[in-house]
Every structure is written in C-alpha cells, then in structure tokens.
C-alpha cells in the first residue's frame, strides 16, 4: 500500500512539474515582453507630449490605452493560468483514473 501511494505521488509530481515548467517558461517570456513594451510606450508618450507630437486629446487617448493594456495584461495572464490549470487537472484525473483502472 505504502509503495503504491509513493508511486502515485511520484506520478502526480512528474505530471505537475512537466506541465508547469513548460507553461511557466512561456508565461515568463510573455510577461517580460509586455512589461518592457508598456514601459517603453509610457516613455514614448511622455516624449511625444513634451515635444508637441502628441496633443492633449491624443494624450488622453494614449493614457486610456495604457490603462487598458495593463488591465488586459493581467487578464491574459489569468486566461493563460486557466489553460494551465485545465491541462494539469485533466492530466491528473486521467492518471488517477488509470491508477484505479477506470477508462476516462
């Protein structure tokens, strides 16, 4: 019994780390790109306003844009997390069902 439990625990850990490592690395790349791009966009707007290329009306438009992109950055991360959770959940359920001899 103890040996079976250890085997199943090892199986669960392997499945979880396999999925998480791959997805976290993709999320890290996306986050780094987004944070850098949003920071550059902020500086660009500052320069545009200071130099007169961006007038008052456009400034408001770009500020709203910054807020929307920050909001959607978080929502994209949330959406990606749901996909990862789904993959993890289904892989674990399949593994556990197989362990008790049930075909899903």
């Amino acid at each position, binding site marked *: 019994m*103890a040996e079976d*439990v250890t085997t*199943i*625990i090892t199986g*669960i850990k392997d499945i979880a780390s396999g999925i998480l490592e791959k997805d976290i690395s*993709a999320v890290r790349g*996306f986050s780094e*790109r*987004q944070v850098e*791009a*949003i920071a*550059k*966009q902020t500086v*660009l*707007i500052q*320069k*545009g306003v200071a*130099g*007169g*290329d*961006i007038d008052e009306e*456009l400034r408001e*438009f*770009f500020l709203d*844009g910054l807020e*929307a*992109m920050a909001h*959607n*950055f978080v*929502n*994209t991360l*949330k*959406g*990606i997390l*749901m*996909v990862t*959770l*789904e*993959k993890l*959940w*289904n892989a*674990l*359920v*399949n593994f*556990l*069902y197989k362990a008790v001899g049930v075909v*899903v």
Partner: protein
Amino acid sequence: MKPLKLYFSFLALFAIALFTGCEATLAPAYDQAIVTKVTASSDLAMRFFAEVDGGTESESFAAREPVYNILIGAFESLKLQAKARPVPKNVALDKINEMLAAKGSNAITGDYPSAFAFEKIAETFKKMKETDKQNGIRPLALQAFKGQVEIFLDQAITYESFLKR
C-alpha cells in the same frame, strides 16, 4: 508524520478528482481560423506602419483611407469571432468562479482577453484614421499608435496560441 500528511493530501486530491467527475474545460476552444486571420491582419498592420513611418500629412489621407478601413474591419471581425466561442460550462469552472467571486475578482466569462485586445486594436486604428484625416500624424504619435497596436497584438496572439493544448 510527514508521510501521513502526504497520504491525506493525496486522498483529498483523489476525492476531488473523483467527485467532480472526469475532465474539465476551463478555457475556450482553440480556433485555427482566428490564429490564421490574426497572423494575416497583423502582417498587414505592420506593413502599413512601415509605409507611414516618419509621420503622415492630411493631404494624402485619401490614399491611406482604404487601408484603415480594411484594418478596422479585420480587427472588429476578429473580435466577433473570438467572442463567439461559448464559455465552458462545468462544475469545476463554477467552483473557480465562486472562489473568484469570494476574493472579489471577476468571474471567467466570454470576455476573453484576445477579444478585448482585438477591440482595442480596432479602436486604435479608428483614432489613427481620424487624427490622420484631421491633421496628419506626427512621428512620435505614430510610434505611440504602433506601440499600442503591438502590445495588444502580443496579448491576443499569446492567448490564442496558448489555447492549443
């Protein structure tokens, strides 16, 4: 003591998996048509930005108007396609939504991040068109329009690609 704790964690996980029943769908389906269309539309958008690099004059707006219309139409249609996918409905998602509500967060609905991003890209091209028509676009304003489109495109493409599981 530690193996006993581990044993109970395993039992809890097993019970949850068993009682909530089979496989869960927590995110919408991957749609190759959306990915193909967003690839083509982003290619068109980037070529357009390359053409107007350095700014525009309102006198030559008429020559660019058809491209603005194509881009606005393409991203509005992508928004509709992305939104049209049904929200997954199952016990696991209901539980997650209950937990999100308890934490004061928004539930997972049909407002997919890619649909929001496509909507914002269409709005950006609409504003760009209006500005171009009225006064032309100065170089830094043009870069800011491009930056905004690129950031939303990255969000949409990353999310849509991630749905392929």
